[in-house]
């Protein structure tokens, strides 16, 4: 099926997530969609698959303009989407998952479905047991199930969102093979990824997204530098930087290994000096958050030690880390950082450890007003935090940091903020550095990472680079590492 998108616009509040996207995808081809987090690729795919609607623009399938309002609509038109995290039902059997989306009567024709399921499996060389429970399957096998399910429902366009995350190399090979077969059978494949290598190895054509715009379409043979440059824009000037680090080690990681359901991080050694800023770069879900949470004691390491001020923190929890001057500032401000329903003053009281039984409202209000002035928070001591704007909430989070601190861990400290707020927040953080506080932060904004870090760690699928000196690292080099290239010299 020929897919044509014309002048697609989509706004989320102030953010222009899709800005005039026009893209033609011919039948029987594999189209790559490449871009950073937040570049707008997922938004476009959600519009095409009916999860959300565009503000304006047209979708044309085989020459006919269509309106797609729900995912069920999309599959009726022949468009099926494989989500990054499979949207399936682990407690059910494979065959039940297979039948679930089928429109029709109260009693599914199970035997017929099993036969068709087996035929499809045979055709594509998948080895799936229809009676197995889904939770016993690997992510790769669940993808296979999802592919044949969508084909069975009549999909002629398959959208795959970051399909190579969390599957083994062997399964990836199998997946690519299948996609090539599907393209030969005249299906249209749309392959969304941030991994340069995958896109280069598979796609007939690549569209690169940057900040909501389609910035270029590239055909093979691909040049990595060209793709990186399209993805991340031109190199930024680092601006004036001031190294605030001292020669004194605040936190030391020895042979740290971590693991969650998706990722493994192995044998990280790192020394964080006082007053130093370390930026963690990488696509979302590459292990930065896991690493940052481990530094706070929120994630138990499998092996290895975290030593703070010479004290081994093995087996200690977050509150013990806090006592040693380590604080975690989460990205989800109203979910993890602040408490909706409580006032700024109540937050200030909560964040301080004061003896006594009754709260001294007078002095707490005075203290809160002082912080409101110092941090330019637009609100009063009695304002509830959910009534503040995003920038004010972020400033409030900084105002709640205790003093003195050894190490502040920040997730996306300026996400969603305008430029002035971001600059202001970093000036406050740099003040902290001058008071010997070290900072480790995650950001998906490469400019922010290059501008404010002293050293950068790049994460890719759980691999961690050696510390790169920010002053001498280029955007291109970072982009390559983030996209999974050039890691050989690191192993």
């Amino acid at each position, binding site marked *: 099926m020929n897919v044509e998108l014309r002048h697609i616009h989509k706004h989320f509040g102030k953010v222009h997530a899709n800005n005039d996207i026009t893209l033609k995808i011919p039948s029987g081809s594999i189209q790559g969609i490449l871009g950073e987090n937040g570049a707008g690729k997922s938004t476009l795919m959600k519009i095409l698959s009916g999860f959300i609607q565009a503000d304006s623009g047209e979708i044309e399938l085989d020459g006919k303009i269509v309106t797609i309002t729900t995912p069920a609509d999309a599959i009726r038109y022949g468009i099926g989407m494989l989500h990054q995290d499979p949207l399936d039902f682990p407690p059910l059997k494979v065959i039940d998952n297979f039948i679930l989306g089928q429109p029709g009567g109260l009693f599914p024709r199970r035997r017929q479905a099993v036969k068709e399921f087996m035929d499809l499996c045979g055709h594509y060389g998948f080895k799936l047991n229809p009676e197995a429970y889904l939770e016993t399957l690997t992510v790769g096998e669940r993808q296979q199930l999802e592919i044949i399910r969508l084909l069975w429902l009549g999909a002629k366009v398959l959208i795959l969102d970051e399909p190579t995350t969390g599957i083994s190399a062997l399964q990836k090979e199998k997946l690519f093979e299948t996609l090539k077969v599907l393209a030969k059978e005249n299906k249209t494949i749309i392959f969304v990824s941030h991994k340069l290598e995958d896109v280069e190895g598979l796609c007939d054509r690549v569209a690169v997204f940057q900040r909501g715009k389609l910035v270029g379409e590239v055909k093979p043979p691909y040049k990595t530098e060209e793709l990186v440059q399209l993805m991340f824009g031109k190199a930024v000037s680092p601006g004036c930087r001031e190294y605030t680090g001292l020669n004194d080690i605040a936190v030391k990681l020895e042979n740290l290994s971590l693991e969650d359901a998706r990722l493994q991080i192995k044998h990280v050694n790192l020394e964080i000096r006082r007053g130093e800023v370390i930026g963690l770069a990488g696509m979302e879900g590459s292990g930065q958050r896991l690493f940052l949470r481990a530094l706070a004691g929120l994630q138990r390491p499998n092996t290895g030690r975290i030593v703070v001020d010479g004290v081994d923190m093995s087996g200690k929890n*977050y*509150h013990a880390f*806090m006592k040693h001057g380590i604080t*975690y500032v*989460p990205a989800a401000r109203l*979910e*993890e*950082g*602040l*408490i*909706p*329903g*409580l006032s700024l003053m*109540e*937050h200030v*009281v*909560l*964040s301080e*450890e*004061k003896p*006594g*039984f*009754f*709260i001294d*409202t007078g002095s707490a209000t005075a203290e809160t007003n002082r912080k409101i002035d110092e941090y330019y928070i637009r609100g009063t001591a009695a304002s509830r935090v959910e009534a503040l704007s995003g920038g004010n909430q972020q400033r409030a989070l900084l105002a*709640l940091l205790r003093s003195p601190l050894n190490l502040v861990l920040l997730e996306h400290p300026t996400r969603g903020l305008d430029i002035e707020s971001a600059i202001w927040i970093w000036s406050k953080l740099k003040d902290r550095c001058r008071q010997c506080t070290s900072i480790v932060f995650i950001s998906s904004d490469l400019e922010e990472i290059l501008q404010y870090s002293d050293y950068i760690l790049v994460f890719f699928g759980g691999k961690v680079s050696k510390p790169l000196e920010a002053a001498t690292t280029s955007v291109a080099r970072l982009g390559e590492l983030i996209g999974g290239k050039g890691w050989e010299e690191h192993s």
Partner: protein
Amino acid sequence: MNKNSKSFELLFRGLAILLAVLFASLVLLLAKANPLEAFRYLIVGAFGTTGKILDVLVSWVPLALATAGLLFTFTAGLWNIGVEGQITLGAVFTTAALRLLMNSGLPPGLIIFLAILAGALGGALWASLVGVLKIYGGVNEIFGGLGLNFVSVAITIWLIFGPWKRPGTGSMSGTEPFPRELHLPVLGNSNLSVWSLVLAVLGIVLVYILLRNTYFGLRLRAVGKNSRAAFLLGVPTNRYAMLAFFLCGIFAGLAGAVQVTAVYYRLIPSISSGYGFLGLLVAMLVNFNAIWAALVAFFFAALNIGSIQLPLMMRLDSTLSGVIQGSLVLFVLLMDGVRRRITGKR
């Protein structure tokens, strides 16, 4: 009128009460009774004589204690459905202490005091069990509490028909009543014990102070509103959740102790009399405010006592009070939702 003003909120509260009364009238009409007459009997039945008013207070004491305790768990964002069982275990522990000490030769006042303390301990232990199940076992407090309610009833029945049975054969009327000197003294020839009234008033005041302007109250609220953020801000969330269960258990246990020492003077099968569940309804209505809890509990107690008139005068079942209480809670919550929708606050 300003949509965010206090009076706008009160208007919706009033509307909710009106709807609840209308709904109860509808139920009465369906039962072929005159609603006005029924409401008159309700009011006369609750406030007609001094004795009636004192009876309302007798019913108010355990309800107020249970509600006061539930304010702790509500504030911490926990649904302590197990409060019924905690009242029951309070009564069981009080009875056990009284049985143990009644022939010890200690002064009766001291025995009663120790028995009431034992009741508080019993409720607190039973509530802590819910807390341990939730925090260390991952069992939702609603299911843990519900399960333990059934267990508490089974324990009571077993005690009444087994180890603590009356001389001869055990009966559903409960254990052998305690001698007069082990009763909390009552006011004149009413059923109201001043001591238990004092206990309930003290409890309400204590909860009011604790939840209003203390570090403890603020941290408990923080845990209830966003326990993840509270944890990252340095509040030991598990400890505070445990503490909320423990304190609620103390108050529920006291309610059970009052039922034994001032109302029934023995252990009976349904010693909690549904005050725990009723307390949950009150707590849902009052938005964490202990003073309002006392007032609403008084209103509910009055409904309970007033409705006793209905079967006598109109051959209606006294469960009408339950219909009014339940519909009141539902309509207040419903109108709250409507108000939020209108003002656009989520």
